[in-house]
């Protein structure tokens, strides 16, 4: 029947949409950061992932039918993903006032970018799946489906590998710190942290329940990343998010040795949990520096 979509095209589009949406499902993880951990958050991201996968799936059939103008809807996809980033950013910024401590602009920017990038994953995976099915174009329907899905999932695996960011634990050692209150001043491992414990109840609370983690950068140049205010804010946020916060939270950097102090009075007194949450905090994109490009070039630059 002329004008109607063929079974082969339906197979191609449906397989590509399913594989692309699956790519979004597999990248929407609820991890130690507990985000997004609410059902509505899941639905929003799954639906946008489905739309992204649909756009990737119909690109190949559009090209084959010489409908070149239709491919411009990919520009629409880019716009849509940017809106996802904007939506995520606005949403997190609105929540800032309700959290134990601020995520900080740098961390929010990183999270929003990740959400945008994961929609591209769905689009690329569904596009590659559709392309594979079209190239194989076998008479056996299930062979097309299996080949397309396998290639799509391999591309997803590759994309996940290259987009995986590093965490604090990759560049630094994190050890428990000894909390000490001298008068109204707070010290961790003999490093001065704050002097706002002027009342007895405050100093007693910190003395009894305060926990501290000390971050030791493995290389001197890692201090550039760890000393960054946005990075330390993100670490503090993850620590308070994991353990809760009863009262008081501080970070401090030690200029001499480059140690970074994270200390707080948590709801759950779990020293190992504090160390783990600090270690697992992602290194923010905005603080990353490539040490290699800073090396002196004796030949001279081009």
């Amino acid at each position, binding site marked *: 029947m002329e004008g109607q979509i063929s079974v082969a095209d339906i197979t191609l589009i449906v397989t590509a949409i399913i594989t692309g949406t699956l790519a979004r499902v597999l990248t929407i993880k609820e991890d130690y950061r507990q985000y997004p951990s609410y059902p509505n958050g899941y639905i929003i991201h799954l639906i946008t992932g489905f739309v992204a996968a649909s756009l990737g799936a119909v690109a190949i059939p559009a090209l084959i039918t010489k409908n070149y103008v239709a491919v411009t809807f990919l520009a629409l996809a880019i716009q849509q993903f940017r809106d996802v980033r904007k939506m995520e950013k606005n949403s997190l910024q609105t929540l800032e006032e309700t959290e134990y401590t601020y995520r900080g602009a740098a961390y929010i920017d990183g999270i929003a970018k990740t959400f945008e990038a994961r929609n591209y994953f769905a689009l690329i995976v569904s596009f590659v799946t559709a392309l594979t099915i079209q190239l194989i174009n076998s008479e056996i329907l299930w062979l097309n489906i299996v080949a397309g899905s396998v290639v799509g999932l391999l591309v997803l695996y590759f994309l996940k590998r290259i987009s995986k960011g590093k965490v604090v634990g990759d560049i630094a050692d994190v050890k428990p710190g000894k909390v000490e209150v001298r008068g109204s001043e707070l010290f961790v491992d003999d490093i001065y942290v704050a002097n*706002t414990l002027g*009342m007895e109840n405050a100093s007693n609370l910190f003395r009894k329940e305060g926990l501290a983690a000390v971050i030791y950068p493995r290389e001197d140049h890692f201090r550039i990343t760890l000393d960054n205010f946005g990075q330390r*804010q993100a670490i503090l946020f993850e620590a308070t998010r994991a353990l809760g916060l009863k009262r008081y939270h501080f970070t401090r950097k030690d200029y001499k040795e480059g140690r970074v102090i994270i200390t707080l009075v948590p709801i759950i007194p779990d020293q190992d949990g504090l160390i783990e949450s600090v270690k697992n905090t992602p290194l923010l994109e905005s603080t990353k520096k490539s040490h290699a490009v800073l090396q002196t070039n004796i030949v001279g630059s081009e």
Partner: protein
Amino acid sequence: MGREPTQKPNYEILAFVTTNQNRVLSGKQLTLLANDEEEQKTMTQDIAKAMKADVVQLKSKDYLIIRV
């Protein structure tokens, strides 16, 4: 969390509680003169609790009630 020198400080001094009359000066913050150390401590604690603020004890033994 302590702010860095490069960033705009966000502290607000809410009150200054002293036992020394010579240090009672005008300013934006509330300045209170206590009769003795015990009264000074109680006043500071009450204000800090009501304002949900932090307390710094200066080396001069005076109290500064601040909010970050």
